[in-house]
């Protein structure tokens, strides 16, 4: 079997980068640790640029397991960017508060590698293993501050629940495999159509014992598999009934890792979600749309309501990110449209919102990291008077929070608008309505933070102005500019995304054509 290894060179280079960083730290013990961070960041930037240039026009498969198409390349560059900004934001933090720096950066790179592979997978075994690669890196990274009991605890809970959710998802995968006989997305698609034809009727007839249906097509196992996969994925993206680990892991993790977890972890899980549900399960959309819809609604509502009562900034961001997951799930629900074009619009809207949300979130966290480097505190009340002590940080946080709340001019508005529009267009009025309503609720808690920064005087012994280290400030400027840019002029980004999601729907388009043909 001939495999075109040149397609996955970036992944190999990533693994090489991580190994080099870890090995270099063993060899050069005298070097200032921050250089490992800058070296990693430089490596990530180079890989990102080279990948973007060299692979953009690729549309190929690596064996049966990976697809290297526009979608993959877009997400490769996206994840590399996330990792780059995380590392830039982490350098000073890690130098001050962590040990084993090289392993810290190495694990960030490995986690990014897992994300890249996850976005590229078009086969369940590969996807599962990539997801585990990603999760394992995060389990370690969350517990990285190993003398801090909060960090241990977050890591322990995250790990145990993560393993449990993996088991649920795997059971679902096994049922899907049992029904369809394959784990390749594109091959699942047609079988799913076979398998779910009239599942509702079949279930009804099974319950009624009438037995009047064709036994060859009686496959509720498929439905259970779908539910379990969604539940497992719900854990990974922290959708609501499965969100318990999120606040703990977020609060326990070192701050840069909280940023990385909320941005990268979520983006990767959604890339997987999107590819799986559009390439493999779209033909069965009528079966899963109701429970994903309920998941989305509950997630939006509970996430926002829980966020209202938080006092710790990390926990606030945890619940905020949960509510954002709700909005993203609306995008998944909206995949179920009358025609393929509308589905693709929904997918593009989802990716756009993902990019906007991630940019914003990293901006918030970069600013909070800068604040934490100075003060070592992360409760909301500690932000008091930040506008006087460090106006730029206060402005960045305010801008990013406005964006998360979905205020016009900022990224959040444009992207949320498009995603809700997709939901409205595809007939999910109620979801869109819930989303818009809870967005107003979210404005309240974001404003509380902004109020602390702008309306109160600084408190405590340390009221002096302070400086932000230059690399971190630079990264922050870029991120805030990105938030404003996406908010004001999302069209070019949307076009790029739209061209990348095209490949996801080839299968579904072919299938629907054949159905129409019949």
């Amino acid at each position, binding site marked *: 079997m001939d495999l075109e290894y040149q397609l996955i060179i970036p992944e190999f280079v990533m693994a090489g980068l991580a190994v080099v960083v870890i090995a270099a730290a063993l060899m050069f013990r005298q070097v200032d640790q921050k250089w490992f961070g800058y070296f990693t960041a430089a490596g990530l930037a180079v890989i990102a640029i080279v990948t973007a240039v060299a692979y953009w026009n690729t549309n190929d498969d690596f064996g049966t397991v990976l697809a290297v198409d526009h979608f993959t390349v877009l997400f490769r560059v996206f994840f590399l960017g996330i990792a780059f900004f995380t590392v830039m934001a982490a350098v000073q933090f890690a130098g001050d508060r962590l040990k084993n720096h090289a392993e810290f950066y190495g694990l960030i790179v490995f986690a990014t590698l897992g994300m890249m592979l996850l976005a590229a997978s078009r086969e369940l075994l590969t996807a599962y293993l990539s997801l585990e690669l990603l999760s394992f890196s995060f389990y*370690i990274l969350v517990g990285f501050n190993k003398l801090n009991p909060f960090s241990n605890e977050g*890591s322990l809970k995250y790990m145990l629940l993560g393993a*449990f959710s993996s088991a649920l998802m795997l059971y679902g*995968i*096994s049922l899907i*495999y049992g029904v369809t006989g394959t784990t390749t997305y594109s091959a699942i698609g047609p079988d799913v159509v076979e398998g779910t034809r009239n599942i509702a009727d079949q279930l009804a007839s099974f319950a009624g014992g009438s037995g009047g249906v064709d036994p060859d097509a009686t496959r509720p196992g498929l439905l259970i598999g779908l539910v379990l996969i969604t539940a497992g994925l719900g854990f990974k993206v922290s959708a609501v009934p499965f969100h318990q680990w999120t*606040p703990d892991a977020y609060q326990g993790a070192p701050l840069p890792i909280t940023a990385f977890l909320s941005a990268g972890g979520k983006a990767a899980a959604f890339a997987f979600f999107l590819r799986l549900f559009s390439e493999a399960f779209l033909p069965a959309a009528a079966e899963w749309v109701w429970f994903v819809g309920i998941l989305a609604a509950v997630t939006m509502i509970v996430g926002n309501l829980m966020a209202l009562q938080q006092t710790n900034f990390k926990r606030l961001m945890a619940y905020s990110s949960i509510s954002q997951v709700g909005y993203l799930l609306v995008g998944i629900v909206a995949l179920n449209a009358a025609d393929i074009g509308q589905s693709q619009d929904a997918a593009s809207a989802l990716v756009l919102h993902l990019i906007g949300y991630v940019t914003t979130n990293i901006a918030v966290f970069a600013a909070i990291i800068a604040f934490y480097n100075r003060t070592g505190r992360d409760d909301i009340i500690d932000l008091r008077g930040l506008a006087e002590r460090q106006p730029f940080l206060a402005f960045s946080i305010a801008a990013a929070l406005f964006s998360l709340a979905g205020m016009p001019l900022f990224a959040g508005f444009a992207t949320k608008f498009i995603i809700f529009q997709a939901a409205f267009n595809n007939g999910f009025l109620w979801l869109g309505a819930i989303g818009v309503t809870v967005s107003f609720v979210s404005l309240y808690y974001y404003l509380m933070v902004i109020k602390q920064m702008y309306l109160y005087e600084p408190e405590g012994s340390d009221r002096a102005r302070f400086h932000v280290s230059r690399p971190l400030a630079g990264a922050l400027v870029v991120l805030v500019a990105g938030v404003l840019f996406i908010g004001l002029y999302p069209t070019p980004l949307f076009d790029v995304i739209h061209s990348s999601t095209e490949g996801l729907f080839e299968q579904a388009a072919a299938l629907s054509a054949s159905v129409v043909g019949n």
Partner: protein
Amino acid sequence: MPALEHILVVNAILFAIGAMGVLTRRNAVLILLSVELMLNAVSLNMVAFAVYGHVDFGNITGIVFAFFIIVIAAAEVALALGIVVRTFRNRATANVDEVNLLKW
């Protein structure tokens, strides 16, 4: 050979027992053991599907999948025990709800 449905039902029971362990136990090591039971049920499921449904088509996906699940489970145990040992060094307990600085 036993019927496929019988194997699947046995696996489902094993899986549910594991889930019950995860939901009722509070010691980290015991939760981990329960998760391992669930993973065993899954790999058994995979092998059963591969053997009954698809081997004759040359499809051994399920067997390969089971192999990888076993490997992952081992790695998971190693890592989880590292974390447990770490927690124990800091807190002298391995019970997840005694580890309660954060709300569980």
